[in-house]
């Protein structure tokens, strides 16, 4: 196979297609977001252990490459809908860590003023229409955002993130069909982390791959290694370009793995220690770092600097959140309705 890279720094490494689109600073920015996600999830875990948080919490450690890779072609004008496991998507879409962690702790300074928490974390100013506590619910909402985008004619797209568990919900099938008949600019991204809580996809889904279902709705179905940033990002660029060009939706299935299991109630009784260990060997951040170093897009020193910066950023975010005020009980019914205009 010919060497497509041809770069002075790395003559012996094949350059995955996406790196023809991305500069060194793009790659470092992607890495920074992946580290932010990892640190955020670790801080969330620690906050729970320390008794600072008490509510629902679903971590996305091990799935960072999917969140960040998918969001690479997106701008603030593009919408995403996310899932109960939504911290990573929120950070990948550009959220600030301080108001995000404050939301996780239920503080008035949070992204949702403490009303949503981990499971409804959102950042509409950056196009994140919200995580969702209902499996599959974000798909039709993303189709609606794509509908608005198509009406505006501004080339914006919408991305619906969902898990393998959502692909047997009616909302999945209805949404793909509607997006396809109306040729809407939407990308459906299934993060197949192999399990819907404890139920393996082989026990829940009749098709071997979620992406196979795309053919029923006359759209491309693409399978990528969700732990390989370059594969995810390239698939996302292609799907987003197709959507922006008016050619309709795409279904991307990113095969990945949830290193931390479903939630804090998870005792890992449905999977083996060997399986968990084997996926840990495929850590998406370590793989991405090795790749961009090999390609000459980053140095080890630059990576270390990012790690340190993100650690400090995360520590400041935790500090901000802990010191932030809780909402006032008297405000419990605020924002149920919009304020009267008169």
């Amino acid at each position, binding site marked *: 196979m010919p060497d497509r890279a041809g770069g002075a720094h790395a003559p012996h490494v094949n350059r995955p297609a996406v790196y023809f689109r991305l500069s060194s600073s793009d790659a470092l920015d992607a890495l920074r977001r992946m580290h932010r996600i990892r640190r955020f999830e670790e801080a969330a875990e620690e906050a729970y252990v320390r008794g600072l948080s008490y509510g629902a919490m679903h971590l996305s450690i091990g799935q960072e490459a999917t969140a960040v890779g998918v969001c690479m072609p997106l701008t603030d004008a593009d*919408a995403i*809908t996310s899932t109960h496991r939504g911290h990573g998507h929120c950070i990948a879409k550009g959220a600030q860590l301080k108001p995000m962690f404050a939301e996780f702790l239920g503080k008035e300074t*949070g*992204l*949702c*003023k*403490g*009303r*949503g928490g981990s499971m*409804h974390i*959102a950042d*509409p*100013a950056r196009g994140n*229409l*919200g995580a*969702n*506590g*209902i499996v599959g*619910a974000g*798909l*039709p*909402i*993303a*189709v*609606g*955002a*794509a*509908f*608005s*985008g198509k*009406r*505006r004619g501004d080339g914006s797209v*919408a991305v619906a993130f969902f898990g393998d568990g959502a692909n047997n919900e*009616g*909302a999945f099938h*209805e*949404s793909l*069909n*509607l997006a396809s*008949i109306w040729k809407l600019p939407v990308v459906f991204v299934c993060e197949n982390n192999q399990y819907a809580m404890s139920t393996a996809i082989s026990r829940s889904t009749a098709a071997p791959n979620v992406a196979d279902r795309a053919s029923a709705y006359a759209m491309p179905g693409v399978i990528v290694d969700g732990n390989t940033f370059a594969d995810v990002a390239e698939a996302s660029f292609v799907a987003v370009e197709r959507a922006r060009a008016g050619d309709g939706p795409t279904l991307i299935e990113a095969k990945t793995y949830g290193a931390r299991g479903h939630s804090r109630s998870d005792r890992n009784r449905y999977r083996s220690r060997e399986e968990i260990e084997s996926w840990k060997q495929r850590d998406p951040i370590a793989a991405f770092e090795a790749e961009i170093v090999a390609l000459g897009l980053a140095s080890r020193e630059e990576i270390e600097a990012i790690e340190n910066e993100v650690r400090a950023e995360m520590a400041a975010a935790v500090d901000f959140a802990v010191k932030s005020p809780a909402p006032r009980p008297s405000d419990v*019914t*605020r*924002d*149920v*309705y*919009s304020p009267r*205009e008169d």
Partner: protein
Amino acid sequence: MPQAMRELTFAEAIREALAIALEADERVVLMGEDIGVYGGAFQVTGDLVERFGENRVIDTPISELAGAGVAVGAALTGTRPVYEFQFSDFSMLAMEQIVNQAAKIRYMLGGAVHVPVVFRMPTGSGLGGAAQHSQSLEAWFAHVPGLKVIEPSTPHDVKGMLLSAIADPDPVIVFEHKLLYKVKGPVPEGDYRVALDKAALRREGRDLTIVATGIMTHRALEAAAILAGEGVEAEIVDLRCLRPFDGETIVASVKKTTRLLAVYEGVKTLGLGAEVSARVAESEAIDYLDAPILRLGGVEAPIPYSPVLEKAAVPQVEDIVAAARSLAQGRA
């Protein structure tokens, strides 16, 4: 500014409101099953697709969950969709998007967004639709904070309230009783608004208060005419707005009449009448009551097919007359 009045049917008044909204605001779109060339199952949208085109009056597949969800997502992102359920019963297929999403998104996001979507729901019995095409589910939706729920009873109100609903920044559910679609009444021309939070006094009377909504307002008015011949003067409050709920108008009326009858088509137990009763029981009006509160609601059964049974399943004029008569007995 006074507008010319004409007689329009309830359905025509809705169509006129939709046309005004489509004309005035390009963000407004209509969505629903067979609302385009077919004109809607009850011919409410009628010729709107010819006037405004298929990009504004949009047929959806029979896919209520995604249809409602697309309306919610579109509303979040700058569109103002009016989604028609062919029958309110079908909204159950979309309950997730209406109740878990539309009603809660603004709150869950700390007030950062609006969800200006309108769901229109042809509702109620009387056309032989049987158990899955005839229900009155207003109380379900009225139980959900974040939704606004209205049930207009006149062509005048449905036009003005629908225009208010489309302009409203929050999700509004509009219950339209199917038997009202052909009812005529005076309707002003042009754009006017009727508030989404105020009941209407339809008839003044001294002997008892009848609180009704939708088609039951008309039956209560018919009953009041009969009762007047017997010397009983009923005051009729048309609730119109179920969420927010206008308890003040009810309380003020009951303090005057000292007797209360709540009439509604939905199933009696845990229905609208419970809220009407409780508002009075929790207020100073309870000290004015000269008789126990009465509720007339739908029977504790699905809506049956046979016209004989269908009629027996929900309050009719004669039921209201009988209940009001017994309530007014012994009055001073």
